[in-house]
């Protein structure tokens, strides 16, 4: 997992509510047994017209946002299916952080596990960012994770909150399984007692 420090890039506003993981990664891209090749599936039905040519009206097809590093999202982004393919695809397309008001729970966890920073702000702050990055000339911003701030092209600095555990994991690009396995003895001891207390769990 690529560690997250300070990242600078353009931010594409995608402000519709309830953009679900079926829209982010449609079913025809879920048939793999590895994580590869998912960049082409991201927002497939929004990015492409029915004849397969790029939809010029879609923000990620427009010059200022084609290489976007960030999405500025509407409420409940990532709702629906647990498919982590949605996050793998976003990451493979170069998205490093998502900025919004509310995110779906499973999706948010999936982002965290793949080094994609999720920043939650209030509606007024989000509206401010969306307005600035909607102009091609000021589409670029920086996300500084160590200092927990977003810096806009017009000079505005917006602080954000993140829990320390999540922040450290993102900054260090940690292997979560390896970290937990350092507690293997503790898990083993808990499990022995738990199965003794609830013997029907052994069936």
């Amino acid at each position, binding site marked *: 997992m690529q560690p997250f420090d300070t990242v600078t890039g353009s931010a594409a506003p995608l402000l519709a509510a309830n953009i679900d993981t079926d829209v982010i990664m449609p079913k025809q891209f879920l048939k793999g047994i590895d*994580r590869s090749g998912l960049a082409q599936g991201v927002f497939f039905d929004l990015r492409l017209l029915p004849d397969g040519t790029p939809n010029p009206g879609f923000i990620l097809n427009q010059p200022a946002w084609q290489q976007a590093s960030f999405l500025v999202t509407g409420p409940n982004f990532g709702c629906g299916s647990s498919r982590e393919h949605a996050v793998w695809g976003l990451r493979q397309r170069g998205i490093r952080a998502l900025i919004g008001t509310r995110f779906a729970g499973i999706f948010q966890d999936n982002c965290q596990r793949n080094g994609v920073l999720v920043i939650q702000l209030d509606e007024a702050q989000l509206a401010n960012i969306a307005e600035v990055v909607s102009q091609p000339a000021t589409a670029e911003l920086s996300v500084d994770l160590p200092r927990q701030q977003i810096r806009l092209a017009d000079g505005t600095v917006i602080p954000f909150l993140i829990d320390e555990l999540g922040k450290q994991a993102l900054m260090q690009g940690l292997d979560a399984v390896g970290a937990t396995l350092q507690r293997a003895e503790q898990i083993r001891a808990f499990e022995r007692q738990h199965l003794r207390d609830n013997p029907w769990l052994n069936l």
Partner: protein
Amino acid sequence: MSSPRTLYQKHIDSHTVCSLDDQGHVLLYIDRQVANEYTSPQAFSGLREAGRPVWRPAATLAVVDHVNPTTPRRTAVMGDAGGARQVEYFSENCRDFGIPLFDVLDRRQGIEHVVAPEQGFILPGMVVAAGDSHTTTYGALGAFGFGIGTSEIEHLLATQTLVYRRLKTLRVWATGELGPGVTAKDIIMALIVQIGASGATGYAIEFAGPAIDALSVEARMTVCNMAVEAGARGAFMAPDDKVFAYLQGRPRAPQGALWQAAVDSWRQLHTDLGATFDREAQLDVQTLPPMVSWGTSPDQAAAITGHVPDPLHEPDPIVRQGQQRALNYMGLEPGMALHDVRISHAFIGSCTNARLEDLRDAARVVKGKQVAAHVRAMIVPGSTLVREQAEQEGLARIFLDAGFEWRQSGCSMCLAMNDDVLAAGDRCASSTNRNFEGRQGAGARTHLMSPAMVAAAAIAGHLTDVRTFAPEA
């Protein structure tokens, strides 16, 4: 004497291996998980690459459900190369890591959230996680279930735990008595309309009250299943005698003295008097009508007696744009009566509504009638055992005589990952859980409703009020 706790707190407390910080993160022990062929492959690959074993293979049940065909004659041949590779790799992983697998030809195969309760694999008091968002279903059994992504599946397989942050709690208190033709599906759809598609984001919902007590265990599963469509990361119901009766004698349930000890322990699984929730919501089901969705988010739904909304009357700009976009996708006009919406397809299936009671409900509506000539109607039972039982009861005959296809079990057209896919412009009355754009096929239009409502729509050829189809009417 400890302070009063909610059912959620009891589950988390009894499964906490250790606290990880002072912000509510804990290492949470997970009793069981269910695995499917499409969200698990990269998790197993991760274990293989790191040379890690599965911590407790017996804690996992593997079921093929998402990509298999549901053609009436059972086949182990997948409809496409990608699906075939996933099923093959799944079987290889289960063999190499020692995990029990119900493959396509197994008599116990079916949709994971139908199969796991059916097998007694999910018991009250358990914490269950699985790579599927509808794992919330297990709340109906007094367990705590939640969906996880593939990285978390790998973490769980390797450690039997998850790094977990406590949720807030929301109690939904449901009162009143359901009218004829109104079901658990209508309760949860009405709740989603009331609180919104992200109304419970960050929360675990406990459903309680007389209207929940009155539901059968299968109906309760429908309610908990769709709690995730309101954003809930888990759903709860206190287990009662109905749950114990449902579980007794199932293959993985305890027996004899162990059964009695288990039931004695499970009776403690309720929210203590005086425990408080972060939020409360009320729902009176007494006058609840059957619900149908008209849009592309589960909270875009209304009573079948109602009309398609007019976005111009919506003050909130984001909601208004959402409505406009939805109506455009759905090909509906503002103000149109919902019972006038003509359908091309009817689908009864999914982990939400394809259990035996759902099929009985639908069969009561269908009996002696015919599917409208322009409608293709399908029944995909929730599991192969449900299918078998429905055949023994004569339900299959009723459906076939009426012109329904009687198919094999799987997730099928709920998410259309197999070859049961709708074409652009098709309009489907569906007993499923999501009406997202493209969910049942690119450009296809989904209307969510109860199985009985789907059955009625299949016969009428358009959305219609099942109460006018009631056999005793």
